[in-house]
């Protein structure tokens, strides 16, 4: 068996855990915090809430909100400049994957200097980052757990994967209350993103007993709780989605992902598509592509999706993939690639770019760009 590794941040979980932000920050040496968030969170009132917590505990803060949904390299550099000019210390990110990845990028530049593209790839970060506390507001991205940071290189029109243990935040405070204010679309998109993390990391070449357990648990929780969460905003269901997202994050951070995310990164880099909306489209096709090498694992997923039954592993796997497609369709999200892109002309470029993505490395079945193009054609 391959030697693996399992690394996660300190995780503070539970209703009202947000209140522990100030003592955590102070323990990490905070006196003037760089708070990274985005406009969407401002309207929900959570940014103001965090600012109040900081001010109420005698901490100064500098606010940076210039994070787009696929964070850009120049935004990272602006944030790092503000951090230096304002003499901030601890970085706090509030939001989904975008503010958190922006915060990771800012920390990287602050600690190491240079341009963010210098750190593209694995283990290129050689100096410490400022302490980071992440407050995820979407149960999906897993960025608050992971060692991944995805930043768009605007000039090259591609998403760079930056992978380093130093990108794992010091503390992740997960408060399910925050999820209550999210839109239905965002709950669905992030839950499917988390589900994709679970599936891909479960199939990954680097999957280990420690990540398998987290991945399977995440899939179970999402299947059981997504509908009640969407339909009734059931607090219990939302809490379970948070746990699922965190578990999926623990899994993919350590096991890596697969070609589904390679394609999603490529699509996001070129067309600025919302990351969570790519997976309902691609995931079933990716699973089908991997079936020849991962029958048993896909069967295990199938049992979670369709329930235990007596059948061959392959038929259960196929049944699971089919059911998953219907499940996504039933959520009212796009399920054809043609609904996301203007035309098919870019598909080859997308495939050619995706084959170089870090996530391609851990996919269980080897791929060429032609294979990826075929998957995209099937999904169209």
């Amino acid at each position, binding site marked *: 068996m391959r030697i693996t590794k399992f690394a996660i941040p300190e995780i503070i979980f539970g209703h009202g855990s947000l209140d522990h932000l100030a003592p955590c920050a102070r323990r990490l040496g905070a006196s003037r915090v760089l708070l990274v968030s985005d406009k969407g969170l401002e309207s929900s009132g959570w940014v103001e809430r965090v600012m109040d917590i900081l001010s109420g505990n005698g901490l100064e803060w500098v606010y940076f909100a210039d994070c787009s949904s696929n964070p850009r390299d120049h935004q990272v550099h602006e944030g790092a400049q503000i951090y230096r000019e304002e003499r901030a210390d601890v970085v706090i990110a509030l939001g989904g994957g975008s503010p958190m990845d922006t915060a990771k990028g800012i920390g990287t530049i602050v600690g190491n200097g240079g341009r963010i593209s210098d750190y593209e*790839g694995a283990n290129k970060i050689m100096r410490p980052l400022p302490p980071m506390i992440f407050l995820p507001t979407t149960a999906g991205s897993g960025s608050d757990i992971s060692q991944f940071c995805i930043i768009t290189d605007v000039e090259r029109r591609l998403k760079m994967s930056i992978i380093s243990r130093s990108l794992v935040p010091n503390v992740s405070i997960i408060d399910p209350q925050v999820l209550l204010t999210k839109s239905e679309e965002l709950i669905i998109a992030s839950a499917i993103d988390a589900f994709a993390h679970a599936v891909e990391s479960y199939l990954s070449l*680097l999957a280990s007993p420690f990540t398998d357990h987290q991945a399977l648990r995440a899939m179970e929780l999402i299947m059981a709780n997504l509908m009640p969460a969407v339909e009734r905003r059931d607090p219990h269901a939302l809490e379970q989605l948070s746990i699922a997202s965190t578990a999926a994050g623990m899994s993919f951070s350590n096991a890596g992902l697969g070609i589904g995310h390679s394609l999603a990164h490529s699509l996001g880099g070129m067309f600025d598509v919302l990351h969570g909306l790519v997976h309902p489209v691609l995931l079933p096709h990716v699973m089908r592509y991997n079936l020849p090498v991962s029958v048993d694992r896909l069967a295990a997923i199938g049992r979670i999706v369709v329930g235990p039954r007596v059948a061959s592993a392959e038929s259960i796997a196929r049944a699971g993939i089919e059911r998953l497609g219907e499940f996504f369709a039933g959520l009212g999200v796009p399920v054809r690639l043609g609904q996301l892109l203007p035309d098919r002309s870019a598909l080859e470029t997308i495939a050619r770019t995706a084959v170089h993505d*870090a996530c391609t*490395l851990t996919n269980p079945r080897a791929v060429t760009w032609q294979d990826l193009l075929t998957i995209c054609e099937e999904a169209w």
Partner: protein
Amino acid sequence: MTQGTSLDDLIGIEHSKLGFFQELRQTIEQLKAAHRDSERNRLEIEAILDGITDLMMVLSKDLRIIAVNHVFYDILGVRDPEGRYCYEIFRHQDHPCPECPAHRSFVTDEVCRETSIFRINGRKLQFEMVASPIKDPATQDRQILIFKRDVTLEKEFQAKFHQAEKMATVGMLAAGVAHEVNNPLTAIHGFAEGILRRVERLRGIVDPEMHADLADYAGTILGECGRCQEIVHSLLTFSRPHSSEFSPVNLNVVVGDTLKLLHNHLKQPKYRRVRIDARLCPTAPVVLACEAQLKQVMLNLLVNALDAFDGSAGPEGKGQAGPPKGDTGSVDGDAPDGVEYLPTVNGGRGRNGVEAVITVTPFRDGRHAGFVVRDTGSGIPPEHLDSLFEPFFTTKPVGRGIGIGLSTCYTIVTEHGGDIRVESRVGEGSTFTVTLPLPPE
């Protein structure tokens, strides 16, 4: 980006979240080393500063004390001088001293020197001061570093040395003069006695009037011879080499003898309006002292008093504040040889026109004896009062004195267990009072 990236890279067994620990530890080590260095430097500097035996101060621009060394505490005994004004501690004044070298150093940005006397804990101490400007490289603030060296003893020794040298010369001269004068005097005296004896034999032979004249002349010659002998004797006692043997000395005699010595000096035209009024003490003021030294004190005080009427120069140890009213300087220099001074005992023979008076009064009370020399001369400006007894302090022009007279007086009186004080007002005159302890009954 997969080029060069492998599954092992993704697992990253060798890689961990980088902490600041290593960096912090290095920084702490560097800080510790820097601290050790600066502590060693501090101790070195402290040792150097402790080795300096001069009083040292750092002053701010407004002459507030910023730092001092241990000598400061030793000499002044002031516990917390930081923040106080330097003149407040040294002079008990609320304004800077006019001769302050620190102030000058600030203005000129150069090293300035000055010697001054300070009264510290009842003792008069003379300090040689060196003020040098220092600039704080961080704040560009200017400060002054002052060294004060106690030269009191040095100056006293110098003064004593000069005095001893002078007295040795005077003693030799006096001995020579006494020898040379005594010989002819003996002959004159002998022949005058012979003449007097023979004059008796001429009675009735020569004209009675002529006889009386001859007898009178011979008597006068004998009398003057006696006076000459007394002067020679005074000169000898005055110039006797310094001896610490004390004997009973009558201050009335000291006054009388000193006035005799001054007799000739007072004949100068410039003193013709000066009257010396000596009022002897009816109860004999006898102290245990060295007669010659007390005469020296008396002589110095009288010469000083006379100089207070001399428009051309200030007294030794006195500032000249311009000719006072009644200064003899206003009288024509070519006036006839009318000697206006009256070196009298008990005075009382003053005439109209005598405008300057020096009063010498020996006294005796329950526990002390002493004498007061009061003049109605020019007086001493207040700023010079403190420096009066300082060796080599003089306002006289070159050639008129080197400034050891009053300092010698001070030393002699102090060695006799006594005290010398001065009161003075510009334009009204000065009073010097010498007090000596009476011998036990």
